[in-house]
């Protein structure tokens, strides 16, 4: 029951052919072999083969929005994190699953990649972030244009969610 749909590189398609790709075609899915090289329109020059934006580390960027400075105390405030978890479960879980890429990225370890200000601005000001923050713009494309919804959190709620994120590794 192996069903295949592949856009392969030249090398892969040659490989597939030599491995009896024809036979696999009998499965009820379909197979497509691309013989040409990748088209120029698909790979704009501006985008070299680097890590996707969701994996990139950018701790200096504070994003665009109301939050300009956040100081994180060394100790996690467990009460605040619990408040944040409740907010998260009601407002965010539909698109951001823990430990799993879903509609949007998983929040696990986000503070190893993003500044706390960027995270809070993305929560509080997503419409402008995807227009004005270059990283948020790229993320929008990586996640198929699914817009980050503005769920109307208060700054305090966003701060609590941030504290909850600190507990997710």
């Amino acid at each position, binding site marked *: 029951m192996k069903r295949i749909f592949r856009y392969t590189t030249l090398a892969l398609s040659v490989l597939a052919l030599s491995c009896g790709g024809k036979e696999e075609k009998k499965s009820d899915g379909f197979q*497509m072999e691309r013989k040409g090289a990748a088209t120029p329109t*698909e790979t*704009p020059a501006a985008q070299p083969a680097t890590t996707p934006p969701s994996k990139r580390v950018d701790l200096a960027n504070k994003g665009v929005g109301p939050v300009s400075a956040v100081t994180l105390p060394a100790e996690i405030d467990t009460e605040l994190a619990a408040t944040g978890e409740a907010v998260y479960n009601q407002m965010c879980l539909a698109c951001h699953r823990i430990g799993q890429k879903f509609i949007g990225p998983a929040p696990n370890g986000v503070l190893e990649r993003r500044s706390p200000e960027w995270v809070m601005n993305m929560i509080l000001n997503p419409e402008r972030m995807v227009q004005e923050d270059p990283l948020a713009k790229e993320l929008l494309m990586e996640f198929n244009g699914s817009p980050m919804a503005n769920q109307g959190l208060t700054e305090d709620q966003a701060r609590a969610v941030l504290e909850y994120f600190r507990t997710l590794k």
Partner: protein
Amino acid sequence: MKKTIYSFLALFTLASFFFACGEGQQGSNGALTSNAAERVYVAPGEHDEFYAFISGGFSGQLSVYGLPSGRLFKVIPVFSQDAEKAWGYNEETKPMLNTSHGFVPWDDSHHPDISQTNGELDGRYVFINGNNTPRIAKIDLSVFETTEIIEIPNSAGNHSSAFVTENTEYVVAGTRFSVPVPQRDMPINEYKGNFKGALTFISVDPEDGGMNIKFQLIMPGFDYDLSHPGRGASHGWFFFTTYNSEEANSLLEVNASQNDKDFIAAVNWKKIEEFVNNGGGTKMPANYAHNVYDDNTHMATSTMEKEVLVVNPAEVPGAVYLLPTPKSPHGCDVDPSGEYIIGAGKLSADITVHSFTKMLDAIENQKFDGDAYGIPILSFEDVRAGTVSQPGLGPLHTEFDGQGNAYTTFFISSEVVKWKLGTWEVVDRQPCFYSVGHLMIPGGNSRKPFGKYVVAMNKITKDRYLPTGPEVTQSAQLYDISGEKMELLLDFPTVGEPHYAAGIAADIVKERSRKIFELQNNKHPFAVTSDADARVERKGNEVHIYMTMIRSHFNPDNIEGVKVGDKVFFHVTNLEQDYDVPHGISVIGANTSELLIMPGQTESFVWEPKQPGVWPFYCTDFCSALHQEMQGYIRVSPAASGTELKWSLGE
């Protein structure tokens, strides 16, 4: 020192004056032009230049606007009951909403398209699709009423519809959701390879416009999103965008966005037509409603059709090809010459343009890149004419002005972008407020567009109009496109969600618009075309009232002998033969809508009285100075009473 400041100020003032002037001369660049009001103003008593037929989306209807004024003239009921016009409430039109699922009083109407002759709009009919319970409706523009609805079997989410070929040979309905064909009980996760997508070609009779499913092409289990016919040299072909070529059955938001290219399916319908005319295809059992309204009997009939002719693309080699198109393409639009097929990859930043000539060449030279379920996939670079590179975010739909320009909407970046066919360069862009979906240039889907205005149809209007609670109006925006730069002239609210629209020069349509229905042609079985025949008849517990109406009375207006438990039919004929004199009628406690009866027409409603008493009925449409006198009484006696049946007027 002071002097220097003053001269600086003077210079600054002068400079800003020049600057402002310069901008004004450039025309609007986002700002509204100063004489916009004048350019959309249609003086009292004057007519608009264009009709715009704008779909109602989840209202299920089709609204009729004038352009450039944006004035609403009529909401034509199509797929949803409309108490105002008794559509789907009176006995005559209930069959129009019959389906294989029973009476369905609502649908989601999306894409109107006007009938064509030789690739130009002829103004006879508007076709529109119902998405949810797949149906195609035909609106006759001599009466501005829905006169035919055909259900589409083997289809689901009838979205790549209802577009006509250039001589209205066919109106085409493509399924958005693939489903088991025929429908059957099976696990959902066995979708891949087992679900199919039906593309339905409905022939349209050149004489009476009668619709009939000629054949269904049973395609692989993708989602067929939008479609348009070839024209000119590409007449005989039809093009459909596809997404979900991944054949995912869950979380499509993610899972149908994996492939960097999906397809435009190119269908040579002339070849398939020839195949079926020679006995090709398979007759498959089916069950679908075909509902026809007759303007002489003023009644609809619903017939259940039991068979449909299906064609497997593998049976007709050379009839279907797949053109790789990035990325989950939505809009599928063909330019007025028929050479360019535009695929707007909604998850791509680019617009891909395919060439019909290159496609034929690639087919001839077998430049294939594999196949999908036996359907050849053409090589992307061999069919691509060009790419409009990164003109905006989220390209959706394209229309044409007939002057070599194309206009594409961008949902995410919320704008209309004007670009040149052939050079693919962006010429102009204007913002939309907000999140534009379709756009429409009158005649923009034909060989001869009227390239004067474009109407953008927006999904979101927050803060654009006075607030009306959580639900706010959706809207259209009118731009003048007669110059090099587009100019925003007007916002106007719309009915329901405006998905797509079709526009046409008013002169083509308005001369054909009927003013009355002739009494002598009224073939309604319960019509009373002579006042002398007004009467009441009892058949068991059914009472039939053969009633007439004219300014300003009903005949009869006193009725006795009706009993609790009776089923009372009011069959009411409007004897007026003058333009714009409809009458209405309803009776207290009727569990249905009023009737709104045009001059020369007959309509019926059913009343089942539950309490003895004397109950009034009256005219519901203000008809004359004596409209308030246009009333009557019906006496209801207890079930066991012996009250004699009688009726009268003026006694």
